[in-house]
């Protein structure tokens, strides 16, 4: 895929069959993906999913057991990190403690033998970019975590790398600062058109910042797509659960239609209609997943909605929204999220409610035959 016109800096990164074995342990298994030039691409997954190992292979700190890494079509798998010309921001920031802010940022330029005048100019620019002008002579120990983070970012960008790698860079910051830095990062990335490969286990962070997200699990990519694709049409219960939040109901397919819809009888007898990416057949065991905010209590709309009667079991009030646990007898318990809009009536524990949700919001996943 060629870089679209007008984009200066970003490079396309392509991983092909990337595999890493640590002895008998498979850390990354046959990962292939294309990171479009100039995009913000996130590797999302729980710890041990192989996302950091994948990033470290792109950076050159981990040697792949098999597979290829191409940056703008050039294979870099055999190059050491210092020859790859990639910017990297580490989880621990890794700001040099014995150097001042400007010396830290000048480091990549000095090892590249850039002239002193040019270094001064570009360090000034980089400081301006991360809004740290005036901090030149400070030592890292005199900076807060957020400021050190900015120094690390400026240092990784000052030599104009084609790709910026970030390993959970915001993990150590508090929630407010993290939200602020997320916006700053996006601003800088859009400004420079640099390709960013970003590793995080925080799904919210992944959804808000990324152009594309690769969800990883057990060393493999589970799904690659835009945040909306991952959220609205997850390919597996794992993605439905890890990205956002889902209710899961076990059931058996009782009828299918050619448009991918199917009717499922959940445990306890509740009949649901749902949508599947793959063709289902009658009698197949499935898991139905539905997001809490898609369920509306006490709704009396048209009959094509899935419905179930239940009792409010638990209430968690969270300011902008309230989460109810509604027990549907033998079917199980559903989590329901209701926005606290003007005049919306609060339910109380023990209230009898009727729940309704759209079949289009109900994802059906075939169960592997060996499961349960």
């Amino acid at each position, binding site marked *: 895929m060629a870089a679209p016109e007008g984009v200066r800096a970003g490079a396309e990164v392509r991983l092909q069959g990337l595999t890493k074995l640590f002895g008998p342990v498979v850390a990354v298994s046959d990962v292939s993906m294309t990171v479009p030039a100039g995009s913000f691409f996130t590797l999302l997954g729980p710890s041990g999913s192989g996302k950091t190992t994948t990033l470290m292979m792109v*950076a*050159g*700190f981990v040697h792949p057991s098999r597979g290829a890494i191409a940056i703008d079509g050039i294979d870099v798998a055999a190059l*050491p*990190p*210092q020859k790859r*010309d*990639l*910017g*990297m921001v*580490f*989880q*621990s920031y*890794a700001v*040099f*403690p*014995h*150097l*001042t802010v*400007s*010396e830290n940022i000048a*480091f*990549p330029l000095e*090892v*590249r033998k850039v002239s002193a005048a040019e270094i001064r100019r570009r360090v000034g620019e980089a400081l301006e970019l991360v809004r740290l002008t005036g901090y030149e002579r400070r*030592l890292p120990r005199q900076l807060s975590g957020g400021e050190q983070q900015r120094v*690390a970012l400026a*240092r*990784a960008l000052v*030599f104009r790398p084609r790709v910026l*790698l970030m390993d959970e860079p915001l993990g150590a910051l508090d929630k407010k600062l993290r939200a602020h830095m997320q916006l700053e990062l996006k601003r800088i990335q859009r400004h420079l058109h640099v390709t960013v490969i970003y590793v995080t286990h925080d799904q919210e962070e992944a959804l808000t910042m990324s152009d594309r997200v690769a969800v990883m699990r057990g060393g493999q990519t589970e799904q690659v797509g835009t945040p909306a694709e991952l959220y609205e049409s997850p390919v597996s219960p794992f993605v439905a659960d890890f990205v956002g939040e889902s209710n899961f109901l076990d059931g058996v397919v009782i009828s299918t239609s050619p448009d991918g819809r199917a009717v499922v009888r959940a445990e306890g007898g509740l009949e649901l209609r749902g949508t599947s990416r793959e063709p289902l057949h009658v009698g197949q065991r499935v898991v139905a997943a539905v997001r809490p905010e898609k369920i509306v209590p006490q709704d009396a709309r048209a009959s094509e909605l899935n419905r179930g009667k239940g009792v409010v079991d638990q209430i968690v009030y969270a300011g902008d929204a309230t989460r109810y646990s509604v027990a549907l007898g033998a079917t199980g318990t559903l989590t329901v999220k209701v926005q606290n809009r003007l005049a919306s009536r609060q339910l109380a524990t023990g209230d009898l409610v009727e729940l309704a949700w759209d079949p289009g919001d109900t994802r059906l996943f075939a169960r592997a035959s060996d499961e349960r």
Partner: protein
Amino acid sequence: MNADGSALVTAPTMVAADRRETRRYLLLLLPALLTLGAFFVYPLFGILLRSVYKNGYTLESYRQIVRTSVYLTVIALTFRTAAVVTLIALLLGYPLAYVLATVRPRLARVLVVIVVLPFLTSIIVRTYAWMVLLGRNGVVNQYLVALGLTQAPLPLLYNQAGVVVGMTYVLLPFMVLTLASVMRGIDPALVRAAHSLGASRWQAFRRVFLPLSAPGIAGGTLLVFILSLGFFITPALMGGPSDVMIAMLIEREVEFTLNWSFASALGVILLALTLIGFAVYYRLMRLERLFEGLG
């Protein structure tokens, strides 16, 4: 206003708490202070007094040391030997400490045991072992001759070379352990960061790892240098007649000449020179760090 008022109320109680804390620390320090006082500070004063007392108070011993070139030569030789030993220990110890600090933890534990192992044997036994190795017909010379590298056995013992080899061997673990403890505190991500920013292996070492390990170099060299100054057994056994170090001189005065005043004066001079060296070194290190900060 309100904040000021509450600060006034809490201030005295804070001071009282501080004082209680200080008292508890003093109590914990007491055994060490008493032991040091009784067995170190008090005898040290004795030496100081004896160095200026010989049938009445006099500075004769000091005058004699300053006037006799042999004594000055011995002092100079002592410092030179200590400097050479320290330098060699640093050059040998730095790579070893680097390995120790960067290998997998399990392997590191094994290596630490190997480094510390010599401490389990008496220094005299170890010195004699070196004498067997380095002697005219010792293992080292036998190999050198057998390999045709030299015609006749080399003089490796009873000279400066023997002293330096023996002392470096004994003092190397102090250097290695001091260096390794500082190196282990260096975040490996810093060296990786240097590589990711385009630094070659040498540049990453020279500009990141080496300056960060500087406190270890300072501590290790200081420790080995000071221990070298007062070394006795190894130079006495492995040195030649002219390789007299200050500790041996003191021993001779105490054991044979029975000139305790003179021996004390030598001891005081050794102590004073050591303290001056320490002060100068401390200053230098401080300045170094200052330069680092200013760039």
